């Protein structure tokens, strides 16, 4: 069982194209280990991704996989889930893919509470295009399109998901591997829109521009700044400063999911059983 996760990968598509030290592999492995943990039927589990470094993950995973257009993974995934609710639908997206070009789809996916599990690989940068600032590049940090430091304030994707109607919101990091796996696995249990932000290190495009090109240093930063939700809630406000951020289950609700709600529509319209 030690390397049982390997069966979930298309061995003939490996090695992957991610840079040495990248955190995407850790997050991808966490997804398949969560799938294994929950015993999801591989033939009934669909992996949908957008465009960018994160979204290349789908091609390596041995399921029905869909590599969509930039920002559009959630609409495609919504179509798959509504058309065939028996399928488990997992979305892999990135910070640019999900919160910039796909931002509208993200908030409406949350609002509809479609039963999807969306894992956002947050590397704080557009990596595939060589390191441009994303809506999740911390203000002041450098990127090729922010040579003097990013001017824009950032999105907190977890707060956004909660406010928009997601019914399961969690965050973890590539450093906290087992915790990340658990956060994703618990997301599978939620029948509704589950959002997990997986913070991943990008030494090549983000780190290099910000004097953190050593992946170990980036992971130590995650270790030193991530605070478990329970501890975070007890922190006085004046301690929630600097780079500190909460990880863990951040929000959960029990609203009915879209496909279940639509079953009622079918019943009212007289189409049940057709």
């Amino acid at each position, binding site marked *: 069982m030690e390397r049982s996760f390997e069966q979930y990968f298309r061995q003939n*598509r490996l090695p992957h194209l991610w840079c040495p030290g990248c955190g995407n592999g850790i997050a991808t492995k966490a997804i398949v280990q969560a799938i294994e943990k929950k015993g999801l039927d*591989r*033939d*009934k589990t*669909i992996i*949908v991704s957008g465009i960018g470094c994160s979204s290349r993950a*789908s*091609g390596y995973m*041995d*399921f*029905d*996989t*869909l*590599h*969509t*257009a930039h920002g*559009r993974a*959630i*609409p*495609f*995934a*919504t*179509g*798959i*889930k*509504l*058309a*065939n609710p*028996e*399928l488990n639908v997992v979305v892999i997206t990135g910070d640019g893919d999900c919160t910039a070009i796909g931002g*509208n*789809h993200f*908030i*409406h996916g949350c609002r509809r509470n479609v039963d999807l599990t969306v894992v956002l690989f947050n590397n704080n940068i557009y990596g595939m295009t060589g390191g441009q600032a994303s809506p999740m590049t911390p203000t002041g940090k450098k990127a090729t399109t922010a040579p003097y430091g990013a001017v824009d304030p950032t999105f907190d994707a977890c707060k956004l998901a909660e406010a928009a109607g997601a019914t399961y919101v969690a965050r973890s990091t590539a450093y906290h591997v087992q915790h990340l796996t658990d956060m994703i696995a618990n997301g599978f249990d939620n029948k509704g829109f589950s959002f997990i932000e997986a913070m991943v290190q990008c030494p090549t495009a983000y780190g290099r521009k910000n004097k953190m090109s050593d992946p170990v240093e980036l992971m130590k930063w995650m270790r030193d700044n991530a605070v478990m939700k329970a501890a975070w809630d007890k922190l006085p406000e004046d301690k929630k400063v600097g780079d500190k951020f909460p990880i863990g289950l951040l929000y959960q609700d029990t609203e009915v999911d*879209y496909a279940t709600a*639509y079953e009622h*529509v*079918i019943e*009212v*319209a*007289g*189409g*049940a*059983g*057709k």
Partner: protein
Amino acid sequence: MSKARLMQGNEACAEGALAAGVRFFGGYPITPSTEIAEGMAKMLPKVGGKFVQMEDEIASMGVVLGASLTGKKALTASSGPGISLKQELIGYAAAAEIPVVIVNVQRVGPSTGQPTAPSQGDVMQARWGTHGDHPMIALSPWSVREAFDTAVMAVNYSERFRTPVILLMDEIVGHLREKVELPEASELEIYPRRQPDKTRADGYQPYAPAEDLVPNVADFGNGYHIHVTGLIHDETGFPVGSPKVTREAIDRLHKKIAIAQDEITHVEEYCMEDAEYAVVAFGGTARTAYEAVLEARKKGIKVGMVRLITIWPFADKAIKALAAKVKGILVTELNYGQIVNEVERAAAGQCPVELCAKYDMTIFEPEEILESIENLAGGNK
């Protein structure tokens, strides 16, 4: 009991799609196409199907492609600016070979243009709206009944060729109300979703073309573990960065339609037996053109009409043969002049090709087209 119903073109389009097996609709409200979404919202749950109103036109396109990948026949409908927004994922559907039908109830553009006013200004957009090279199928009905029929054809072609098909309606037909009798389900030929012809163990490749050059891509959830991408891919479905694979992939997309063009490209002829001149028209405009042709006949001008039901792939053969037969062709269209260039190209100088264009929110009056016919015929009547 008569089966006759008073019905609008948009409603007939929705009924046709449903009859062809569409069970999923994703859309966004936009005039003059909204009645299609409204019709689907009402009818789909009655047959166990699903309707979802999305946050924008791009999402509407994405959601129907996702649904189609699970094996459900899927439809979206829009107009003008909405169709412009959908182009990104229309290209995706062409590249990833996902069956889908996009209804475009054309209105005056560019941009927000003249909402609800009729136009046929999206003819070239239907063909060339996305980036990159791929063929397109576009059909254009001229009546409420034909809105039903072409909706069925569009769904069938999308499934048969695994390609996006544009149902290029116009506001004239979309909002026109006519008495129609719709066919029984048993009278319709419905093309089912193509199925894999091999098992995974037998070396199934999702994008390996069948004899007709169309791949039998497995629906999601059936254990085939396929990969679908908008990147150029080989038979396995996985991206390959090679010039040879790129050339072959783009060649096959074109050839699968080209070898079936005679099956797809429909034209209808009216009063052409002894015609010395011909009007070429399509969609709602063809109704006015037909009236003008009848009036011209009363005046002794031997003129007929060729109506394009299939806009793309263009009716090269029919127009080439027409140009060899007549002394002149008049193209009537509600735009600044689009399909006229295709007619000229296909006519290849065999006869003069004149344009009768209109782009001022109003539809043609028969007199306007009649005058153009008289000018074309000149002293030759």
